[in-house]
């Protein structure tokens, strides 16, 4: 069973639609027990980090999300919430990775949010999430904050600065872009996630 975390801060429909394309019907849930039993957990997120963390707390999902043993995929704000801290609202995240999330600086040549398609600077060799994906492939981003590059970084993209396009810690993966909105490349990444062993 593929679970999609529902905590009133994620656009679950787009992810559900993309999974449907891959022939998978996801269970949209905020029940910790269902999440524990899931074979895959997808954790989308849009909006403000602080209100999203509050929503997680009010659904009592913080601890359950830290204890998932199945492959886990945070998307966009979902990935940022997997980090230790985000400057957005000075919010403490789930701390699955020690990474810090900061805001893009002012730069006349680079509007914020970064909105649109961008390719990769680098992808970690043998990354199972990016199997068959090249650094030339483009994926869709919408974000004003980014995770800093560190040991947990799985892929790097450049927008004025280098930032983590994807992170990984054991069974936990996170992507800053929207695979569910990134055409065939996005579908391939989601397919790779579903096929993780």
């Amino acid at each position: 069973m593929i679970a999609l975390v529902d905590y009133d801060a994620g656009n679950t429909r787009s992810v559900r639609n993309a999974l449907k394309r891959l022939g998978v019907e996801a269970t949209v849930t905020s029940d910790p027990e269902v999440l524990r039993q899931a074979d895959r957990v997808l954790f989308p997120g849009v909006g403000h980090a602080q209100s999203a963390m509050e929503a997680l707390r009010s659904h009592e999902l913080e601890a359950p999300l830290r204890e998932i043993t199945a492959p886990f995929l945070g998307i966009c704000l979902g990935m940022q919430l997997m980090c230790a801290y985000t400057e957005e609202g000075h919010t403490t995240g789930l701390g699955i990775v020690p990474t810090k999330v900061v805001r893009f600086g002012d730069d006349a040549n680079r509007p914020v949010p970064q909105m649109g398609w961008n390719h990769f600077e680098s992808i970690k060799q043998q990354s199972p999430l990016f199997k068959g994906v090249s650094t030339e492939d483009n994926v869709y981003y919408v974000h004003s904050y980014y995770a800093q590059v560190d040991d947990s970084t799985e892929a790097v993209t450049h927008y004025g600065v280098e930032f983590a396009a994807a992170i990984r810690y054991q069974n936990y993966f996170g992507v800053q872009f929207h695979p569910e909105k990134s055409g065939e490349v996005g579908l391939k990444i989601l397919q790779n996630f579903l096929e993780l062993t």
Partner: protein
Amino acid sequence: MLKKRIIPCLDIQDGRTVKGVRFVDIQDAGDPVEQAEAYSNAGADELVFLDISATVEARKTLAELVERIAETIQIPFTVGGGIQSVEDAKRLLDAGADKISVNSAAVRRPELISELANKLGNQCIVVAMDVKRDSKKDFQWHVVVDGGRTETGLDAFEWAQEAETRGAGELLCTSMDHDGTKSGYDIGFLQSLRQKVSIPIVASGGAGTMEHFAEVFDQGRADAALAASLFHFGELEIPALKQFLKTQGFPIR
């Protein structure tokens, strides 16, 4: 590098595309879902749907249409037209729209932008503004509403800055002077606007040739360029346009 975006825009009335689309591979020229898929396959980077239905009933069916579009395409799309409240916007986002756009309603009640941004996040709030050059003064543009019929007297740059401050995530700027002329985008306006705001700018109104797209990305410094009939009537094919821009050295998907 972040790519420059090419965005076809479709006008929707009572669930159908208004002018229709002349594509060889389209069976039903008025079906927005089929058109969305064709554009997505042709390499469009995003799509914009503007509902120009006059009645409340027709607008209710918009959410169902958005659901069908979201099930069909794998690229982001914006939906606008008649959004007056957070509830209106949320209905469309829940149906699968990635962004919503507000225009006249936000000019009449600017707080709407703040309410939308606070509740839904600024990444999904597009403020669409229609501008007209001041005929008496140089380098001044005013905001017009109701499809260009009503002058507001509002300075376009001040309004753009207010929209940004209130939480708009992107501006969609249509030049009423250039719209439909096929003489190119309003580069002067876009250049000035770029110096006033730091959110992404989608340029609209005036595209007639491939060179106009190069110009709007280069001199106009736009992040994305929108066009409607030019694409719908097959005067310009998206794959050829993107190939042209690539050879000109622009970052294109």
